[in-house]
C-alpha cells in the first residue's frame, strides 16, 4: 500500500477519500483554500495545507503547479484527485509520474488513461459493442460543418476530453452547433481539458442511462458490479441514482456484464472504472468509460457492501482484488438523491449562502452523506451539491416508499434546494413506473407540475393563514415594542420591527 496519499479535492469526496486512506493505514494529506478551512476533510486529515490564490481567474484546486509542488515537497507517493477538477487531467498525471508519484486514476496497459472519449468509443466498437452513430474527431470549424451534414438535428457535440457534463451540448440547429463549438473551444482551457478535439454523435431521444462500475487488478481479476441507473439529470448532472436499474432484464445484465469483462481485458484496465450505456427500446448503446469514482457510486457501495473508494486505492497501489463475486448479483434495491443548493424554479440557478435551519432524516434503511449543518456556508464557487440521501429496501417499492418519507422529513432553509422538487418526483406516476426520461425535469412546466402535486387544497388554506399570521405577527411585534418603550423606554427590541422601519428587499426577484 501507499504510505502518504495527497487528496486533491474538496467537499464530500475529500472527506470520503481522507477516511478511505486512513482506513488503509496510510497518511492522509489534503489541501484547502481559505474558505474551506473548517470542512470535514481538512479536519480529519493527518496533514492539511492551505493553497494560495495565485491567480484570481483560477480557483486554487485547479492550480496544477502549486499542487504538484506540494505533492513533491511533502514526499507523497500517490495523489487521489477525487472527481472533476484534475481527475482527468493528462498534464497533471504526467507531471506527477515524472516525479515518481502515482495519480489514482485507471490505467490502460499500465499507462494513465487520458480519458479520450473518442478513442475509448473506437475500442468499444472493436470489442463488438454497439456504439452511437457519429463523426471522427476534429478541432476546426470546416470539419465541423462537413461532419454535421452526415447527421440529423438534434445532435450532440462532445469534447473528446470533457467530463461531468462539461464540454457536452445537445444542439438543434447549425447556429446552435456553431456557438456550442465556440463555447467548448473556450471552456477547454478554463477546465484544463487535454485538447480542444471534439466529435459529433446522434442524439437518442428518451434513452435510459445506465452504467456498470468495475474493479480490476493488475493480474486481470475483475468484478463487474450491478448496473446503476440515473433516471433523472439536469445539465448532464445526476439528480437520482438507482441500483439495480428498474425493469432491466436480468439476461441483459448478465450479457452486458460479460461484454464489459471482454472490453476491460482488451483495454487491460487497472483500478476502478465505470462503463456507461444508453438504452433505448431495450437496445443498449455503449456511451463512454468514466475513470473516476462519482457520488453515484455510493449507491453501489451501499448495495454490495464493497467500499469502492478503498478498493480503488488498494488496486492502484498494486494490491490484488479480494472481493467475493456474490456481490455482482443485486439482493436489495438502493435509491439515492443528490441534494443541491440551487433553485429549480429559477432553472436550477445556484443558491449559495448560509444554512439557517436543517432537519436531517434518519432511521432503518435511510442513510445520509453530508457535511452541512445549521450555520454552514455554501460556497458560490463550486459544485452546489450539499448532500447525498440514500435508502435501501428489500424491493424497489420499499425503497421508493422510504425515499418519499425521508424527503418529507428532510428540510433545509436559508438556501434554496431541490428537496421539494424531488418529493414531487418520487410521488409521480412517471417515476414509479420507470417511464420518466432523463430530461423530464429540464422542462419548467414539468417541474411546476411536480411541486404542485404536493399541494392539497388544505395547504392553500394554510398558506393563506400563514401569510395573514405573519402580517398579524408584525402587528403584535409592533404593539409589543410600543408597550415596552412606553414601559421602560427600552429600544433593545427595535430590531424586531426592522422590516417596517427600513423595508427589506424582496428575496423573490433574483
Amino acid at each position, binding site marked *: 500500500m501507499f504510505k502518504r496519499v495527497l487528496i486533491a479535492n474538496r467537499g464530500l469526496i475529500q472527506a470520503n477519500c481522507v477516511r478511505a486512506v486512513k482506513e488503509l493505514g496510510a497518511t492522509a494529506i489534503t489541501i484547502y483554500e481559505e474558505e474551506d478551512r473548517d470542512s470535514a476533510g481538512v479536519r480529519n486529515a493527518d496533514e492539511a495545507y492551505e493553497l494560495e490564490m495565485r491567480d484570481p481567474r483560477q480557483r486554487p484546486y485547479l492550480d496544477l503547479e502549486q499542487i504538484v509542488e506540494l505533492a513533491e515537497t511533502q514526499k507523497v507517493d500517490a495523489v487521489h484527485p477525487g472527481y472533476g477538477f484534475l481527475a482527468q487531467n493528462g498534464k497533471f498525471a504526467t507531471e506527477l509520474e515524472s516525479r515518481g508519484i502515482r495519480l489514482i486514476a485507471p490505467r490502460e496497459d499500465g499507462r494513465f488513461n487520458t480519458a479520450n472519449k473518442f478513442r475509448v468509443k473506437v475500442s468499444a466498437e472493436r470489442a463488438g459493442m454497439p456504439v452511437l452513430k457519429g463523426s471522427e474527431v476534429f478541432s476546426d470549424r470546416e470539419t465541423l460543418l462537413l461532419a454535421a451534414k452526415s447527421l440529423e438535428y438534434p445532435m450532440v457535440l462532445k469534447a473528446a476530453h470533457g467530463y461531468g457534463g462539461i464540454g457536452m451540448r445537445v444542439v438543434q440547429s447549425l447556429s446552435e452547433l456553431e456557438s456550442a463549438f465556440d463555447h467548448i473551444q473556450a471552456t477547454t482551457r478554463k477546465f484544463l481539458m487535454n485538447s480542444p478535439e471534439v466529435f459529433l454523435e446522434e442524439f437518442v431521444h428518451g434513452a435510459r442511462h445506465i452504467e456498470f462500475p468495475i474493479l480490476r487488478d493488475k493480474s486481470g481479476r475483475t468484478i463487474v458490479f450491478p448496473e446503476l441507473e440515473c433516471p433523472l439529470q439536469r445539465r448532464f448532472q445526476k439528480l437520482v441514482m438507482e441500483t439495480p436499474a428498474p425493469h432491466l432484464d436480468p439476461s441483459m445484465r448478465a450479457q452486458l456484464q460479460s461484454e464489459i469483462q471482454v472490453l476491460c481485458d482488451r483495454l487491460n484496465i487497472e483500478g476502478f472504472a465505470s462503463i456507461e450505456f444508453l438504452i433505448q427500446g431495450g437496445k443498449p448503446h455503449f456511451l463512454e468509460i468514466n475513470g473516476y469514482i462519482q457520488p453515484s457510486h455510493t449507491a453501489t457501495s451501499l448495495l454490495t457492501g464493497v467500499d469502492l473508494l478503498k478498493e480503488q486505492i488498494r488496486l492502484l497501489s498494486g494490491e490484488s482484488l479480494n472481493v467475493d463475486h456474490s456481490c455482482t448479483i443485486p439482493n436489495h434495491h438502493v435509491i439515492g438523491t443528490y441534494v443541491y443548493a440551487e433553485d429549480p424554479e429559477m432553472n436550477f440557478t445556484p443558491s449559495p449562502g448560509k444554512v439557517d*435551519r436543517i432537519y436531517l432524516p434518519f432511521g432503518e434503511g435511510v442513510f445520509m452523506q453530508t457535511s452541512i449543518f445549521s450555520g454552514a456556508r455554501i460556497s458560490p464557487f463550486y459544485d452546489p451539491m450539499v448532500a447525498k440521501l440514500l435508502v435501501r429496501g428489500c424491493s424497489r417499492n420499499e425503497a421508493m416508499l422510504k425515499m418519499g418519507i425521508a424527503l418529507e422529513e428532510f428540510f433545509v432553509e436559508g438556501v434554496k434546494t431541490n428537496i421539494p422538487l424531488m418529493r414531487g418526483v418520487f410521488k409521480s406516476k412517471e417515476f414509479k413506473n420507470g417511464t420518466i426520461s432523463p430530461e423530464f425535469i429540464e422542462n419548467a412546466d414539468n417541474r411546476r407540475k411536480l411541486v404542485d402535486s404536493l399541494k392539497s387544497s388544505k395547504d392553500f388554506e394554510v398558506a393563506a393563514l400563514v401569510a395573514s399570521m*405573519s402580517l398579524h405577527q408584525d402587528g403584535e411585534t409592533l404593539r409589543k415594542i410600543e408597550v415596552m418603550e412606553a414601559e421602560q423606554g427600552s429600544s433593545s427590541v427595535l430590531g424586531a420591527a426592522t422590516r417596517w422601519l427600513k423595508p427589506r428587499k424582496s428575496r423573490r426577484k433574483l
Partner: protein
Amino acid sequence: MNYIVNCGKKHAVAIDRKGELNKPFEISVDKSKYSVGVRRLKEDGSILTLMIDHKVVPIDVERRGDGMPVRVFLKGVPFDVEISKVASTRFRPELPEREISGEVCAKLPGQIIEFMVKEGDAVEAGAPVCILDAMKMENEIVAPKKGTVSKISVETNAVLAKGDLILVIE
C-alpha cells in the same frame, strides 16, 4: 383581524385579535377552523415554526419591499400569496409606489468575468450588461431599465458578495 388572501383562490382569513402569542390562536379560513400555535420565532420576531392542528409546520415568508407577504413556504414548498385586503382596527400597511432602481447589484455571490458595457453606454431594458460566474455557471446580468450607464463600480475578475453594487443606470 380579517384578511383577504389570494392563494389559488381568494380566502377569507380571520384571526382573533385577543390572541396571545404564547397560546394557540383560533383562526378561520373560509369555513374551516384551525388551532394555530406559534412554536418558534426568529430574533427579528418573524415566525419560524407553527403548530397547526397538532402538526408541526416549519414556515418561511417572502415579502415585498413594503413588507407585504408575496410568497409562503410550508416546509420548503412555495405558495404565491397576495394579501388584497387587511381589515384592521389598528394598522394598515401603506403600499408605496415602487419605482425601478437603476442600481445593478450581484444577484449571487460570484466573480465578474466580463462586462458588455462601459460607462457612458446607452442600454435598453433587458440588455445584458455583464457575466457573473457562480458555481461553474455563467449568469448573464441584464439592465433593469432603459438608460445610460453612469457608473461601473467594480472591475473584471472582482469577486462579489450577494448584493454588491456592480453598476448604475440613469
